[in-house]
């Protein structure tokens, strides 16, 4: 599946340590330690607090997005669902509903948005890139249409405080607990269930997966529904954290999510990638932006650095596969060392 024969030639610890995911985790630790020693104020507890709050929406959406991209599909409409869910929470709150009710409605609408994507991709068979470019505009249009250019901002203080409160004095936002629960859930789903193995199979070859008994349509549909629901959840958090429901909330967030997923080692062609790498990818972008901002570096330069990092990481995947392929061929000339089609040969 995701492993080459060459990889089997090494013991487990070596495979884990030399994996793409380990490299990203090491980068996160390395960059953090460098920043801790060299960037003024980076060591403060507030940095951790702000950093985690800033990346929370990306972390949340990256979980289902990883599964979607592993199947070889993509969902570009996530940020628009965030905006729509934010607007719904605002409008319902204005209409006199309590926050939990408004949030529940937003979650359901988010799931419905995902279901529309999923239906068009899985059952009608349209390419997800085209479908979700369309729904990106559609959901954002609905969000802006419902609320116009105004903003709902009079959310109850106990709810807005809840969104940014921390666990004791640790500086870690409480919302991280919610993320942990979801992360464990998605990890079990992707890495330790038959459903998850089906997800990889679809990414490696939809037709082959179908013949081996994977319910391709159902799997894709479920993944898009999950993505919609989790995006709506991110939208609720976003609204409460800033205490502001606006139609243009989180515009452009989809690209940050996808960038983090790819940086974390997920192949855009599907069939390859792990959640741990993705989480590390999100944190890497968060740490780099936070450290550079503290150094007074402008947003344009930060984007250039993160963009370069992303390009290097995407290019490095086939190159690393080729290197290990060659190395394995030299070391164990007699063993079969062929990599699966599409890997190592650009």
């Amino acid at each position, binding site marked *: 599946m995701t492993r080459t024969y060459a990889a089997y030639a090494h013991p487990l610890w070596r495979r884990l340590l030399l994996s793409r995911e380990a490299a990203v985790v090491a980068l996160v630790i390395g960059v953090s330690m460098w920043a801790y020693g060299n960037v003024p104020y980076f060591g*403060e507890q*507030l940095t951790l607090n702000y950093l985690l709050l800033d990346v929370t929406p990306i972390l949340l959406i990256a979980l289902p997005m990883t599964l979607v991209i592993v199947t070889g599909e993509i969902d570009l409409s996530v940020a628009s669902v965030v905006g729509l869910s934010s607007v719904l929470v605002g409008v319902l709150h204005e209409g006199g509903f309590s926050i939990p009710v408004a949030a529940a409605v937003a979650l359901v609408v988010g799931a419905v948005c995902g279901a529309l994507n999923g239906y068009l991709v899985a059952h009608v068979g349209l390419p997800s890139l085209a479908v979700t470019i369309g729904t990106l505009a559609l959901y954002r249009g609905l969000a802006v249409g419902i609320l116009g250019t105004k903003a709902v901002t009079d959310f109850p203080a106990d709810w807005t405080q809840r969104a940014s409160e921390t666990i004791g004095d640790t500086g870690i936002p409480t919302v991280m607990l919610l993320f942990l629960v979801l992360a464990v859930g998605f990890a079990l789903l992707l890495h330790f269930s038959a459903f998850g193995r089906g997800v990889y199979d679809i990414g490696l070859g939809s037709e082959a997966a179908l013949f081996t008994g994977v319910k391709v349509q159902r799997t894709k549909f479920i993944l898009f529904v999950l993505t919609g629901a989790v995006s709506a959840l991110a939208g609720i958090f976003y609204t409460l954290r800033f205490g502001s429901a606006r139609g243009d*909330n989180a515009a452009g967030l989809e690209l940050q999510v996808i960038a983090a997923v790819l940086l974390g080692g997920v192949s855009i062609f599907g069939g390859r990638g792990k959640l741990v790498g993705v989480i590390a990818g999100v944190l890497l972008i968060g740490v780099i932006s936070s450290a550079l901002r503290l150094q*007074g570096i402008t*947003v*344009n330069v930060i984007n250039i650095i993160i963009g370069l*990092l992303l390009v*290097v990481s995407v290019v490095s995947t086939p190159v690393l596969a*080729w290197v290990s392929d060659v190395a394995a061929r030299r070391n164990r000339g007699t063993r079969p060392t062929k990599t699966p089609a599409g890997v190592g040969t*650009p």
Partner: protein
Amino acid sequence: MTSISRRSAVLGVAALTAGLALTGCTKAATDSGTAGTGAATAAGKLSVVFIPKNLGNPYFDTSDAGGKKAVEALGGTYSEVGPQQASPDGQVQYINTAAQQHVSALVVSANDPKAIGDALNQARKGGTKVVTFDSDTDAQYRDLFINQASPEGLAKVEVDGITKQIGDSGEIAILSASANATNQNAWIDLMKKDLAANHPNVKLVDVVYGNDDDQTSFDKTAALLQTHPNLKGIISPTTVGVAAAARYLSTSDKKVKVALTGLGTPNQMREYVKNGTVNEFYLWNPADLGALAAYAADALVKGKITGKEGDTFTAGSLGDFKVGANQTVLLGDPFAFNAGNIDQFKF
């Protein structure tokens, strides 16, 4: 075939790595500068961070340049950071960063009156003074708001301008934005009162609405000139309207015969001022606005004022200012742009 593409892939990676390394070097070079900022803050020196609505916006480039000049004249360190798109969440990240650096003052044009409030208050708790300019937040989130213009000032300067140009007698009309725009209607009411009280020979014959749409405003101007052949002047208190009216007039036989003024921006109006269609139009000077915000920040940081009503401070060559109701400071009378000064402004 494959070996060639592999080789080029390796070359590509090498080039990118080199690129990244170079970026790293640039970053290291910037390091020392920022470290200086940190030291300055610790020593209690003035450090002011300007956060515009977004970077690369000519209006804020002008205002922040004014702020920079003022901060440097005060012996402080100036920096400008902000998001690429005018979004509140992008501003929050930079407000948080400034709060961590314990800068002495933040000067912000708010993308949302409430969404950046908690971040601002957190910064204030750490000792940072917060001044808003151009776009205010709710009053509880900042120490001072620098207001660019008052409705009375804007209405008066336009009436004075047009009546002077037409010799204080004859028919005039107003080209407004939309019929239910609150600020436009407030200005128009003030203009009507001013005309009735101080200019008895000037008659306001019509108010038309171009809906802040270029083409509609253009057509309404044409219709206005047709229905009122004796029209001597037009006031358009909206940047879209005044530019569209100027475009129509500049190609019609009414050019120069019908005077036009209003609220406009130099970039949109430059051509029509230079070809004589428009003598003078009004707005505020963003550079002065930025400078006043910087001086106000300095006065707050040094404890000369606390931001309460009645406080007074001096803003360099701009003169003395007094804090008004709602912790607001008014920049003053609108600024007149004409052929003599328009080339100094790039927004």
